[in-house]
């Protein structure tokens, strides 16, 4: 689970800082031209165990062009492998944070990644065991299981703390930002970035509404 360990700038600091709050709205509209869907039954076996978390919890809101000076807070996180899925599917961490991958299924799992930001393979291990890894490069790290080809998760590694995952209603609040103009992004693994420009002011919080056209569940078909 994501543990936000940011300095809460509620009081006035040396630098002028502003709050950014908002709401993420998921739509089911699909841009682009998809492939024809399959008429054959899927060969995966994890269909009947959908992710425990609603789709909104797979969205990450972050400031794209934020600069951060000074030491970056780190955290310890967990990406559970259960019912042949990664839980959660999406994780957002600061650079230098550690993620552990415990196996909660009664069979072997594996974790590997081909991503530039974290190319690794943790090998296969059985239930109850765990492996962990420190992510030292910012970027998108896609992790997969080498045994179950339908399993995937995404870890977003940031070199700043200005990111969050909305609550079940889609509401979010970013850590206080230095005033200025920014690009705020709503990201989803299937959609990529949906961004807009915002202006962060010290006097009043900036309210943002992000629309992310994520196909939900079977509606994709």
């Amino acid at each position, binding site marked *: 689970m994501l543990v936000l360990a940011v300095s809460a700038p509620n009081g006035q600091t040396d630098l002028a800082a502003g709050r950014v709050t908002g709401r993420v709205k998921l739509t089911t509209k699909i841009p682009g031209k998809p*492939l024809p*869907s399959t*008429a054959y039954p*899927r060969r995966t076996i994890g269909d009947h165990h959908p992710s425990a978390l609603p789709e909104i919890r797979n969205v990450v809101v972050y400031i794209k062009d934020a600069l951060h000076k000074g030491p970056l807070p780190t955290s310890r996180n967990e990406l559970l492998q259960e019912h042949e899925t990664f839980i959660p599917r999406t994780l957002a961490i600061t650079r230098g944070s550690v993620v552990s991958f415990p196996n909660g299924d009664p069979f072997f799992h594996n974790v590997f990644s081909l991503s530039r930001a974290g190319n690794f393979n943790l090998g296969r291990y059985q239930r109850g065991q765990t492996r962990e890894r420190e992510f030292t490069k910012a970027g998108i790290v896609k992790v*997969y299981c080498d045994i179950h080809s339908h399993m995937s998760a995404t870890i977003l590694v940031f070199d700043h703390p200005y990111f969050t995952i909305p609550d079940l209603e889609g509401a979010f609040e970013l850590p206080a930002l230095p005033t200025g103009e920014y690009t705020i992004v709503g990201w989803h693994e299937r959609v990529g970035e949906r961004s807009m420009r915002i202006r962060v002011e010290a006097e009043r919080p900036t309210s943002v509404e992000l629309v992310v056209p994520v196909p939900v569940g079977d509606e994709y078909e």
Partner: protein
Amino acid sequence: MKTLTVAFVTVAALLGVVFIVVILSMRNQVRDAVVSNLESTQRLFAAVETRRQQDVRSRAETLADNPTLKAALDTYQSEVQDDATASRADLLETIDLVLENVAARVDSDAIVLVDLHHIALGAAGPMANRWPRSRPVSLVANRTAAGPSGADSFDGVARMGDNLFRVVTVPLLLGDTLIGGLYVATSLDQDYAQELDQLARTRIAIVSDGLVVATTLSPRAALQFESAVAVTQPVDGVIPLDGESHAFRRLVAVGNTVFYALGSVDESSRQAMRDAMRNLALIGMFGISLAGVGSFWLAQTLSDPIKRLSTSLATMAASHDVSSRLPLTGSSLELDTLTETFNALMASVGEAEAETQAAYTGAIRALATALDARDPYTAGHSDRVSVLAVAICRQLNLPAGEIEVVRLGALLHDIGKIGVPDDVLRKPGALSAAEFDIIKQHPTVGARMLRSVPFLSPHIPIVELHHERPDGGGYPNGLRGDDIPLGARIVHVADAYDAMTSARAYRNARPPAEALQELWRCAGTGFHAEIVAALANALPGVTSEPPQGGASRG
């Protein structure tokens, strides 16, 4: 020979009729057969092709369910906005490696990985180079085949450069999410057409966008087919290609691409015709040889015996021989019955003939007797001459047939005297020259009489020439020596002997020995010596030696 000809002509006519009927019916039958063959080819092809596509797909799906491939594709797409080309090159290399693996396990011309926008990210297989990276693939698919069972909805045709590919699409899913697709591509080229041709045993033409892209037809036929069919793309039909009638049928249509199976009606009918002709020729040869054997047998059992019979009949007819009998041939019951009937008929004809002859002979004999009776002195003369002549014949060992001729001839020898008036014939004294001339006409008159009765013709020489003398002093022709027929010589001697031994009005009868003496005296001049000798031998109790030197003349 005639029988053989008839048999041959019959067989030939029969074969001709059969041939025409066969020709007429065969073309239609062959055409129907070709069409139905194409239909079954189509069904078979559809079934096999569906099955094959499913096999390919299921295999490709298994191979596509590859964590590394999916991870590489997914990661590649997640980093597509980054400009870190090195990392992406690594991913593409990973993709290529996995694809090579898949290609080695699936029988296809190319295995292609495409992203969600149908852009090729990698390809492997023999024709991978037709699928360059980053090139969008335009897949023409059947949109009509709907429903979950419509496996064809995934089938598409893609043109990459000069090559047309048939594509089976396998979706790549990551959980619920579609991340790309795997294309299993089969090149629709000449090799493919050849393969289909051999499988279906029909000509194949693959038509796409109005052009024949691959075919096993001849180039000329392909061009004609293209102009006739490619645009309208009918389901089936019959068209002339390169001078031959072809039936064609659409095997399967994918988008704008249609697979056609074609069969030449003419080619098939030629084959069938050849078979039929061979069979007919065999039947014909068999029939002709059967006819040959049959006619030979017929000739043996019917024609030849009939010919023999007719020859015998002709001989019999020519010789007026009604007495001889036809031999039984034994070749067939009918023929033998016929022969027997004929023989029976001939027997009765013979009897009738004999009766007729007897009647004739009796009549003539009665005439001769009557003639003899005109003069009491000559009564019984003809009978006696006949007996004497037969006796002479016996002495000369003549065959029975000739003796018979002589016997009747002797009986009739003076028949011509019917034309001699009584006063001349019965004149007691010497005859005048004119009277003797009348007498001398009687052989000629007798011969003329006999000529009117055909069966008496053998006796004519006897009647006509029984007054000729070896020295040529006789009448009517004055023949000499050997020119006088034997029968006439015999009757001449017998006649003279009987005349001498019979009484006449002007003289008494001479004794036999004296008469014989007289004959001997004239042997060689008036009579033939050997006949006189035969008479001498024939007369019992009359011993008369020929005078010295008399017998040597003859």
